[in-house]
């Protein structure tokens, strides 16, 4: 009987120790999970607050093939709530990267950063010739990265089919 009482007591103590350890582990993990969730939430919120949109006339996107390099010029508006980094932009035309892409901000005086509601002018260059001509419809795709906001950065993209003129 005494042996049975001792073993039960040992089992009880062991159970308490294990459950305490598991509780401590769960609390620690929960804290970590909450932190990760918070970062994810901020990231998701930042995602929802970033946007870029084509600006201009989709039926009249400037195409200059008079000399090489040929150029396509169009505009993108920062329609989100945070500044974007215009130097970190990738542009694809009909799924193909052009020879080069230059980005500049529009306005007088020229904005120093791509803040919300401001335009960036995108000049896409082709050398050798692109094979496009006036009246062709092309698919533009652009993706831009935001400035670092609260230690986080995310991206926004836009796609549209336009007519060259």
């Amino acid at each position, binding site marked *: 009987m005494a042996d049975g009482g001792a073993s039960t007591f040992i089992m009880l103590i062991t*159970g308490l120790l294990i459950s305490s350890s598991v509780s401590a582990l769960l609390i620690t993990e929960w804290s970590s999970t909450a932190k990760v969730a918070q970062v994810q939430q901020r990231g998701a919120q930042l995602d*929802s607050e970033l946007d870029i949109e084509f600006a*201009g006339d989709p039926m009249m996107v400037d195409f200059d093939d008079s000399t090489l390099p040929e150029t396509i010029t169009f505009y993108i508006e920062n329609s989100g709530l945070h500044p974007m980094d215009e130097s970190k932009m990738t542009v694809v035309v009909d799924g193909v990267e052009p020879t080069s892409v230059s980005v500049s901000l529009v306005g007088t005086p020229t904005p120093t950063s791509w803040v919300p509601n401001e335009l960036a002018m995108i000049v896409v260059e082709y050398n050798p010739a692109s094979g496009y001509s006036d009246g062709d419809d092309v698919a533009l795709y652009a993706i831009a990265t935001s400035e670092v906001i609260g230690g986080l950065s995310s991206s926004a993209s836009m796609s549209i089919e336009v007519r060259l003129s």
Partner: protein
Amino acid sequence: MAGSVGIGGLIIGVSLLVVFSMAVQTMSYQMETSIEVLDAAADPLPSYAIADASLLEGAILSVTVTGTGLGSGVVDGTLVANGGVGLGGFSATFTVSSGEIDTNSVVITSHGSYSTLPTSITVSGQGTLNPAPTFTFTTGNIFYANLTNTGDMTIKTDDVWLFFDGESPTKFSSVHRDGWAQNQATPPFASGNWYVGETVDLILPNPPSLTTRFAVTSEGYIAAEAI
């Protein structure tokens, strides 16, 4: 005894882990859903329409009185453009004060449009005035458009961009002024708020190069009109 306690502990532990993972997953779903809902509710999109847009070439933009006609018997009246070819249509009014034309009274009521510009502007219908009042004028192109906010939110004109033939992006707020049709003096900038249902007149002397289309964009919403 010891075995059953161990198995019981294992079952409880696994149950706790399942509950824990479900709680984490639920929290994640709730977070995503709440952000999507908040995003959709807090971000209405602008909507507007271009009722008409036209470019008048060879318009008379301003008229200056250089001879007031003092002592000529001139009375309040209208002005006429002479020698122009094209659609025509220029008209303006003036008033007389102390027997001479008030130099600040000329109001252009129609800028007209001429392929060959008028050679002079004179007083209409008052015979030969001596000394004759004299007028100088400037000419150029003038762009008209009527835009209506058809959405359910007030639009800031600072957030609206105008495009002429797909180029020359111009902020609406930088060219939207009050009262061009009523006064030759450069009027003040119009309100920066474009209210729901409001139709605003855009009158833009000497617009950027424009031959084909006029487009207005804001936050991805695009309206365009052939000229």
